[in-house]
């Protein structure tokens, strides 16, 4: 996976990884696209069957490979295609984010949002807002694997 594309002389563009559940959030992203609602190109979407599929290791792996922010999107609680997947995911992510915070990692680099298939607009807003937040935080140096930073040739 190629890593954040910033160099010193360029304006900082964060690399954002968004895990989107197949049934709601990915469809929401789709809708955002077809509705011509923009969201930052730095957001890389990874489609997962359910938000519950997101293993804490996925989040860490994304940071390892150079993500500056990681967001997980799933169906609204109660609307999960598999009825309860996102409830488990909610607990899991809460604890993981709390742990990252405990280790001193900027808490704003991680986020969970519930985005339904009809919420193309929300998807776009969320991504824009998250990208803005992460841009303000700057490059993630606390949690990445430094070896994966793009070399300045």
């Amino acid at each position, binding site marked *: 996976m190629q890593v954040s594309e910033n160099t010193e002389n360029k304006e900082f563009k964060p690399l954002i990884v968004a895990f989107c559940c197949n049934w709601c959030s990915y469809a929401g992203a789709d809708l955002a696209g077809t509705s011509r609602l923009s969201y930052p190109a730095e957001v890389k979407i990874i489609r997962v069957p359910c938000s519950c599929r997101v293993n804490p290791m996925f989040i860490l792996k994304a940071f*390892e490979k150079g993500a500056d922010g990681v967001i997980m999107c799933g169906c609204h609680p109660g609307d999960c295609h598999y009825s309860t997947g996102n*409830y*488990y995911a*909610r*607990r899991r992510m*809460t*604890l993981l984010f709390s742990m990252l915070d405990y280790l*001193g990692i900027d808490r704003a680099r991680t986020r969970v949002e519930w985005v339904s298939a009809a919420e193309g607009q929300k998807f776009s807003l969320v991504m824009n807002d998250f990208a803005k937040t992460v841009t303000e935080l700057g490059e993630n140096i606390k949690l990445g694997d430094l070896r994966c930073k793009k070399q300045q040739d």
Partner: protein
Amino acid sequence: MQKTAGLIKKRVLELLADGTVTKVLGWKEGDFIYDVTPASFLSAQEADGLVYSSFCGANLSKYLISECKALTEGKILALLKPCDTYSFNQLLTEHRIDRDKVYVIGVGCKGMLDIEKIKAMGIKGITKVIDNGKELDIKTIYGSKTCKREDALLEKCLCCKSKNFKAFDEIIDPEPETKEEKADRFAKVSELEAMTAEERYAFWQEQLSKCIRCNACRNVCPACSCMKCVFDNPVSGVSSKANTDSFEEKMFHIIRAFHVAGRCTDCGECSRVCPQNIPLHLLNRKFIKDINELYGEYQAGEEVGSRAPLADFTFDDAEPSVVNERGNS
């Protein structure tokens, strides 16, 4: 302890003799009192080496996983301290051991000692430690020393969960529940939470950078009972053998703690065995504290069959954004 040890030995010999048990899981004496090794004993003759002292901190419950599998007849006797019985229950909950194959003798515990703490006081060349209850009489090759017993307690014993046994077939020499106010086991966690993110980062960076990836914390943990650990699986993408980048230290320790979150009984073995003294229990306790605060008080191993918080949910659980509202940033 001397008295308890005598009672234990007597009872163990009886149970071996009458055939109630065919194997005994206990502790074997070492060269210097403090280097006690977990061991199994098959006969009265072997059981001669059985000890129970202030250095029997090792939690024997995890050995029951392989012992239960290997056991073909009779029962295996396990000597468990009160805190070990929580791990035992947790393993039962997860169906890793067979209750019918185990005969649990709960053994009273006054709190176990940490030889590392004694050595850290600058006491060198320790050949013997005599536990007088309040004080320790320490023989060294450079003469005798003394120290307060409470100053040499294992980290996990400083805030002892309970003197009560959560599982047992019989109990030998139980200790009364301590009356005085127990130390808050989350004190250090709260202290860290109150720090700034930068301070916390610096704290963990210093601690985790000591990690030599020996896997002792993982291998000793009664909750880490996977047949094949994700960190040993070459196709998992995280199976590095050594920490090359500091990310790998964090990855390993976050995931190790996460994999036991909600199942960790806070037995403290991870911190006890760490050769570099990394306070790993502070990671586990952070999860426990969060779980208690967000999803209600939960003690893994308190009762068999309870549902682990991460395998459970309620409709009105806190949103992950709750993290932003708590503590210091």
